[in-house]
């Protein structure tokens, strides 16, 4: 353990956030420098740790309660292993690029200070998730990324859509966290600890534990957390809306890192997921991938298309985790997570560059012909698209191929689904390219567009490199070392690496490629040089369902209105009319009424008085003497 380095990596962004909030909220340059500086230094330190090959844990005690027999201990610790080290690089690396990009993108916004504070807070929280040594610490940072996401989605809080989207994102995540927290409590209740290391040892020592039904339930519950954060069906509804945030935020949080946290967490706790839970997870992932890919086909907002694409890819990853099997190796999911982080961030940043050039126009049917006006943006966007589609030799090819290979090995149905999603992916991405970047200009806006400044294009180029090459760096093998299963020795040399997938699992590789080709051809046929979407006319109702996202939002709104809102109305009614009204006011009223009646006894007439007096005496005597 290299002493203070990991702590610095974690806390530098927090210090930056605190510093900006307290002192530099109104200072554009200072806040940007603080925030960028923090994340870049974190990146440098992460690289140092990575190169050094550091492994191990460090921690301090956060809360410790013990009666001698049992204990409840929560540490704030840092755990460095292949999983977290690589993830550190991704978060700080992609983060650095996006921070720098943001400086250009957000340059004219009056709230830059607030923006960078939020970004730094997010980086801190995300790093916390990556480095967490135990469930509760993970949960703490889990919540913190949630709130920083809320902060940044709602950055333009005066826009009702942004404010609503922020609220929706947070609440949907909370639904997942509800299960997550219960899962954590359950784990602690039955196993007595929340520490990943100890849990893993326990599981290793007693393999029968994993078949235990309680731990199975805990696994399901924990997956709820992942489903919320990674926007898996049925909690996927928040992510498209989250695009209301500034584009760099979408790139960093809602494409590259935070939404991947669910997958990361599943890999982190993979050792305690039972077979039932894994199968469930796989299917949820598969369904999400397919649904999202379908919905992406009919979106017209450039960022929304990318958002659905993100959903779909996340579904891939989650599916992979599920398919890896008990005690298996989910490193393919992490591999795809990593490459996806690069190219999806790049896609978003490219989209941001376009949006900036078009003065915040996001409808692709108002673009067109941008490839010539914005060459850097176009070519980097193209690289990322190819990577996303899984065209060799782009990074996405390798990671997607591993996923398909895993699926092919374990579940034919999900394999077919995966191939279909690959085809759809190519289709909607090239639809986007054909409509937005090539073909006729569809409004006045693109006429005045021109390439973005260097502060924006440089990060694009920087991200294009790993998008192109990450497949050759052996990231998958590095991840695999985490899970200790004996992977075949990797091929050496570029060509050998490129051909290896075809040799290993030809079905997966060729199937994937075929899907890409089909998708491309379909997109070309439908969208090349078009000014209007031909699909709605062809598909009719189906297209409308796709465009309206299968009406999930409306369904949920109804569902919430029918359950929680109805309960709230009922509770409010009971509170207002029954408890405060009937119960309290009723008591009060009846007491007062009794008083009013009782004082009528006091007639003022002396004769009644003496009569009552005598009656009183009589009652007294009767009471005492007659028994």
């Amino acid at each position, binding site marked *: 353990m290299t002493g203070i380095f990991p702590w610095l990596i974690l806390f530098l962004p927090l210090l930056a956030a605190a510093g900006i909030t307290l002192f530099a*909220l109104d200072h554009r340059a200072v806040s940007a420098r603080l925030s960028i500086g923090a994340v870049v230094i974190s990146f440098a330190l992460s690289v140092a740790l990575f190169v050094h090959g550091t492994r191990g844990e460090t921690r301090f*005690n*956060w*809360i*410790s*309660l013990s*009666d*001698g*027999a*049992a*204990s*409840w201990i929560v540490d704030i610790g840092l755990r460095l292993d292949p999983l977290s080290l690589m993830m550190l690089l991704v978060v700080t690396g992609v983060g650095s690029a996006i921070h720098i990009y943001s400086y250009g993108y957000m340059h004219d916004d009056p709230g830059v200070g607030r923006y960078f504070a939020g970004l730094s807070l997010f980086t801190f929280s995300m790093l916390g998730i990556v480095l967490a040594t135990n469930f*509760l610490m993970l*949960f*703490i*940072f889990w*919540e*913190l990324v949630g*709130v920083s996401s*809320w902060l940044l989605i709602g950055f333009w*809080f*005066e826009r*009702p859509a942004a*404010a*609503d989207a*922020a*609220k929706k994102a*947070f*609440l949907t995540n*909370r*639904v997942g*966290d*509800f299960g997550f*927290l*219960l899962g954590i*409590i*359950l784990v*602690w*209740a*039955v*196993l*007595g600890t929340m520490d990943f290391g100890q849990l893993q040892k326990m599981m290793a020592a007693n393999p029968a*534990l994993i078949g*235990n*039904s*309680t731990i199975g339930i805990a696994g399901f519950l924990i997956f709820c957390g992942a489903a919320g954060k990674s926007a898996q069906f049925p909690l996927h509804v928040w992510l498209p809306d989250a695009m209301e945030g500034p584009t760099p935020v979408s790139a960093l949080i809602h494409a590259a890192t935070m939404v991947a946290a669910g997958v990361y967490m599943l890999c982190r706790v993979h050792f305690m997921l039972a077979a039932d839970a894994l199968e469930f997870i796989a299917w949820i992932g598969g369904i999400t991938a397919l649904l999202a890919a379908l919905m992406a086909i009919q979106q017209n907002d450039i960022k929304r298309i990318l958002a659905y694409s993100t959903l779909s890819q996340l579904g891939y990853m989650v599916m992979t985790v599920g398919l890896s099997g008990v005690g298996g190796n989910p490193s393919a999911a992490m591999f795809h997570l990593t490459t996806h982080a690069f190219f999806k961030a790049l896609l978003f940043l490219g989209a941001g560059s376009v949006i900036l050039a078009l003065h915040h126009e996001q409808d692709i049917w108002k673009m067109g012909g941008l490839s010539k006006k914005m060459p850097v943006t176009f070519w980097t966007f193209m690289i990322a698209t190819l990577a996303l589609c899984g065209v060799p030799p782009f990074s996405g090819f390798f990671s997607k191929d591993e996923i398909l290979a895993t699926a092919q090995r374990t579940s034919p149905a999900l394999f077919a689904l995966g191939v279909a999603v690959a085809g759809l992916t190519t289709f909607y991405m090239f639809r986007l390219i054909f409509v937005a970047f090539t073909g006729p200009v569809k409004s006045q806006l693109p006429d005045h567009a021109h390439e973005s400044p260097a502060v924006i294009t440089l990060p694009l180029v920087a991200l294009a490199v790993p998008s192109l090459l990450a497949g050759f760096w052996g990231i998958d093998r590095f991840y695999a070392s985490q899970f200790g299963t004996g992977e075949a020795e990797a091929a050496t040399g570029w060509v050998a690496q490129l051909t290896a997938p075809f040799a290993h699992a030809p079905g997966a590789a060729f199937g994937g490629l075929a899907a890409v080709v089909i998708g491309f051809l379909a997109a070309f046929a439908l969208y090349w040089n078009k000014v209007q979407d031909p699909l709605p006319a062809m598909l009719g109702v189906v297209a409308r369902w796709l465009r309206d996202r299968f009406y999930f939002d409306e369904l949920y709104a109804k569902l919430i209105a029918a359950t*929680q*809102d109805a*309960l*709230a*109305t*009922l*509770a*409010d009614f009971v*509170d207002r009319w029954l*408890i*405060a009204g009937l*119960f*309290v006011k009723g008591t*009060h009223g009846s007491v007062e009424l009794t008083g009013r009646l009782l004082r009528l006894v006091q007639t003022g007439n002396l004769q009644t008085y003496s009569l009552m007096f005598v009656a009183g005496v009589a009652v007294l005597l009767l009471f005492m003497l007659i028994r």
Partner: protein
Amino acid sequence: MGLLSFLILCPFAGAVLIALTPRSFNVLFRLIALLTTFLSFAAATWVFFAFHPGATHVQFEEFCPWVGALRIGWHLGVDGLNVALVFMAALVAFAAACCSWEIKERQKEFYLLLLVMTGGILGAFASLDLFFFYFFHELALVPTFIMIGVWGRGENRNYATFKMTIYLSLGALIALIGLIALYVAAGARTFDIPELTRDVAARPIAASAQHWIFPLLMFGFGILVSLWPFHTWAPLGYGAAPTPTAMLHAGVLKKFGLYGLLRIALPLLPEGAQRWLPVLALLCLGNLLYCGLVAIRQKNLNLLIGNSSVAHMGFVFLGIASLSLVGVTGAVVVMVAHGLLAALAFALSGYLQNQLGTLEMEQMGGLLRKLPFVGTLLALAMFAGCGLPGFANFAGEVMVLFGAWGGHTTVVVLAAWAALIVGAVYMLRAIRTVLHGPLPEKWSGVADAPHAWRKLPFALLLAGLLLFGCVPRLLTDRIQPAALTVVRAVNGTPAALMATTQLPR
């Protein structure tokens, strides 16, 4: 004079001083109030940090006989259960004194009452004598009523004052009956709590007596803490109360009932506790879930905060009912955290009321633009209210949920729903309607807290929340030994402190 006596008597001395100062020295009242509460705060800070964590005995103890014939004594001291509460109370009191800017008329009376209330609160938490424990609480209640009646706001304040008076007095009286019955049943003929505890440990109170005394205390104290279904006074009362009063009552004085349960009811009536705490665990759902749902429907910011404050009490009840080390410790943490939070929330809503003249949320919107400081703090308070890590509330609430799992699994599931989702729904809704969205034209003249003095109380309270949220060991290490004593006293065996560690096959 010991430190605790000093910090209790300081506000009273201030009150006497104010009473003797002629009415024309308007500035002086404020200064005296600020000074005396600050002295108390300083002393409480010293007590808190000089408190030796890990020790089970009472620290900073003071004793002086008062009514010898009845064995009532001026007995002060702090242990894990109350040291943080005293600190929190003093902090909130100082903040409340700072927040009294809005009081413009009859300042003399206001500050006098404020100081009496402060002294009463500190006394109630620092007393280790049954009589003074109760006496100080009642002493703090009276100014509350008067302050709401005279300086309160809104149409409803008369009704609110009466309702609150009747409710709280009824609760206090029921608790008083319970306390006296406890004294009688214990047979030790002393009001000294440590002595009683020792005596009861040696010679337990008859089970039959425990079974009827405990509910008296539970419901008596419960009414004071707005236990469902005796909660309707709280949102109404806080809605009508002037800001400093709402801060002090919702934040601190309300915790008296909970503290009473932990300090007196549980250790002295273990069998009663065993029988009745399951009932409490069910009723706490009324707070957590039901009042949370009611809060969703509120249109007035103060009513929303008031209902959420009622809802949060559910965590403490659940923690107490859990009878586990983690749960009870968590309950105390929530008490402290909620004290700071409620004070902060009411201070902020008071500021808004002052600026806008209304707290109807429909009329607000986009205020974050005009009020970056106050708005940000309000958002943070709301997030603290829905259990965001980093604030002390999270630490406490999560401990409560963990602690109660073993005994009350279903309740914990529903409580977690209430905490994570229902809480988030109304808190976020408040932020959305108050701070976010377009800014209505009429609020263009609204001004943020202008200078450091005005920001100080908010900042102090927030700092407290963050401090205990980020370093909860400051609290838990101090609370743990005392909580362990309480739990042991009730459970008898030291084993059952944690949730089940049996693995069902």
